[in-house]
């Protein structure tokens, strides 16, 4: 889908980025100053790379070898800028519909729907200068959504939004990506968001892309610890909904070798879903425990134990084809005499599993 291989220079920094991603959400993840905004600007056509090639779903946007450089307005990339960049002289409404009346992009996305999603109903007649920080950001998101884009670039769009609002917007983006088939390039500092949303993860560090790949794979890579942030390591598993228990508000997901109970997953029986299970939320037991509030307990086999210095140990457990990642103290590893190959019981609290869904292709 999106295929990038470019190099250039930003200020003092040599810039060299290469990644490919399939449809869905591609996250750009990296420290402040790593070059994320620069990379998105190059893809959008606002900064010209020194050399290389960018193509999006078959269309070549930039190719230094052939001298191709599609102008910004022809790239049809909806861009949520890090600094909202609203038009100060236009009302919120005119900002939102700018692409329609000025860009002649019809698009069939529903205006009312977007306005409601972003909670902008009462702000439509206002000027950007009177909006709060979060309100500005929401208008910027709406404006890009309504521009009928072929690709949506979002540069830290949720940075100043509260959790409740994020929880509204993220599933929408998710849906957008799947239903409308619009790929999203998502810049974020929050590994939570990244893991929740993305299919492909691109790590950016000092203007380079040391690694990219499917997010599940990237999140279990232990060599990217610093970039992904240790506290938030985890694993993605996929499974099929086998039962929805209306009474207790629980959904049962068969991940192959175990059935997980998850709160209130808005899915129907038969759906394929993807779950993120954080390593810090996983406990291990040497034998199946009893009388515990933890509802998910299933056997698995330890495939790797990486004891870092400090109090932690990272443990990967195989469960048929899937891998679960656990972080426990080194002390517990010793106490329970854990070792590679040993059978253990994996414990996961139901409430710890993110409420999210994705139909995998």
């Amino acid at each position, binding site marked *: 889908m999106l295929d990038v291989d470019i190099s250039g220079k930003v200020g003092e920094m040599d810039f060299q980025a290469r990644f490919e991603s399939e449809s869905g959400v591609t996250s750009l993840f990296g420290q402040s100053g790593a070059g994320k905004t620069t990379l998105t600007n190059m893809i959008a056509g606002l900064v010209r790379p020194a050399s290389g090639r960018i193509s999006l779903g078959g269309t070549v946007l930039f190719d230094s070898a052939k001298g191709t450089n599609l102008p910004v307005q022809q790239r049809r990339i909806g*861009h949520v800028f890090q600094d909202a960049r609203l038009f*100060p002289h236009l009302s919120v409404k005119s900002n939102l519909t*700018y692409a329609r009346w000025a*860009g002649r992009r019809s698009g069939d996305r529903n205006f009312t729907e977007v306005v409601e999603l972003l909670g902008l109903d009462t702000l439509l007649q206002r*000027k950007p200068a009177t909006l709060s920080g979060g309100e500005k950001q929401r208008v910027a998101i709406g404006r890009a959504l309504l521009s009928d884009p072929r690709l949506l670039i979002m540069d830290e769009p949720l940075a100043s939004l509260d959790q409740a609002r994020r929880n509204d917007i993220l599933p929408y983006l998710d849906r957008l990506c799947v239903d409308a088939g619009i790929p999203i390039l998502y810049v974020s500092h929050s590994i939570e968001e990244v893991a929740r949303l993305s299919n492909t993860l691109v790590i950016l560090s000092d203007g380079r892309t040391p690694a990219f790949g499917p997010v599940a794979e990237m999140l279990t890579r232990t060599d990217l610890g610093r970039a992904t942030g240790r506290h938030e390591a985890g694993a993605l598993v996929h499974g099929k909904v086998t039962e929805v228990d209306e009474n207790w508000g629980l959904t049962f997901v068969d991940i192959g070798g175990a059935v997980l109970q998850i709160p209130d997953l808005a899915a129907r029986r038969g759906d394929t879903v993807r779950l993120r299970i954080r390593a810090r939320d996983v406990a291990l037991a040497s034998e199946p425990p009893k009388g515990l509030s933890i509802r998910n307990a299933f056997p698995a086999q330890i495939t790797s134990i990486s004891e870092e210095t400090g109090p932690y140990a990272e443990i990967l457990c195989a469960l048929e084809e899937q891998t679960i990642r656990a972080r426990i103290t080194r002390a517990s590893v010793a106490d329970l005499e854990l070792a590679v190959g040993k059978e253990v019981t994996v414990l996961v609290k139901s409430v710890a599993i993110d409420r999210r869904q994705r139909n995998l292709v």
Partner: protein
Amino acid sequence: MSFFNLQPDEWQALLLTLRVAAAALAVSLPLAILVAYVLARYRFPGHGVVNALVHLPLVLPPVVTGYVLLLTFGRKGPVGAFLDDVFGISFAFNWTGAALAAGVMAFPLIVRPIRLSFEAVDPKLEEAAKSLGAHRLVSFLTVTLPLALPGILGGAILGFAKAMGEFGATITFVSNIPGETRTLALALYTATQTPSGDLAAFRLTLIAAFVAFAALIASELLARRLKIRLGGDIA
């Protein structure tokens, strides 16, 4: 006749002045916007020359500018003769000529504030417009131009005031013909030419000042509305 009633010739001069200044502005403003934008956004080899040409009417004494106009746009001048032959337009000794002189003299005053405003518009907003599909001209019309409105208004008011008061180039180019080219400024000059004209001169000065005052107040009100429209703090 009371002191406060305008005499017919005063009315005539006043209306003519307004017509000349308005026509001068109507023609120079679009051109000034274009030139200001080009000077603000592009660097090209002839940049300095264009810039200097724009300012030249300011540096030369108006009489010289008027004389140059007379030589080029006069009935016998190369451009004047051509326009007359081909389009039947003549600037010689009529109010359109006065408007031309006023427009040329006001031009540098209009260009500079507009250029400043264009330079102050954040190109990032134009980038945003383009990313939303607006082509160059559309993004100029919907983003850059509205954001530069304070400067355009500022340039227009300077230009209008200058066009109203223009004297040297006008009298040299189109002479001082009542009802045709005798604007308030020229009438005022005429009045000062004889000692007995003092009262008339004083009256004309008041009229000119009053019109200018009205134009300024109007422009201030417009500017304030604009500022509110542009979303500045209402408080």
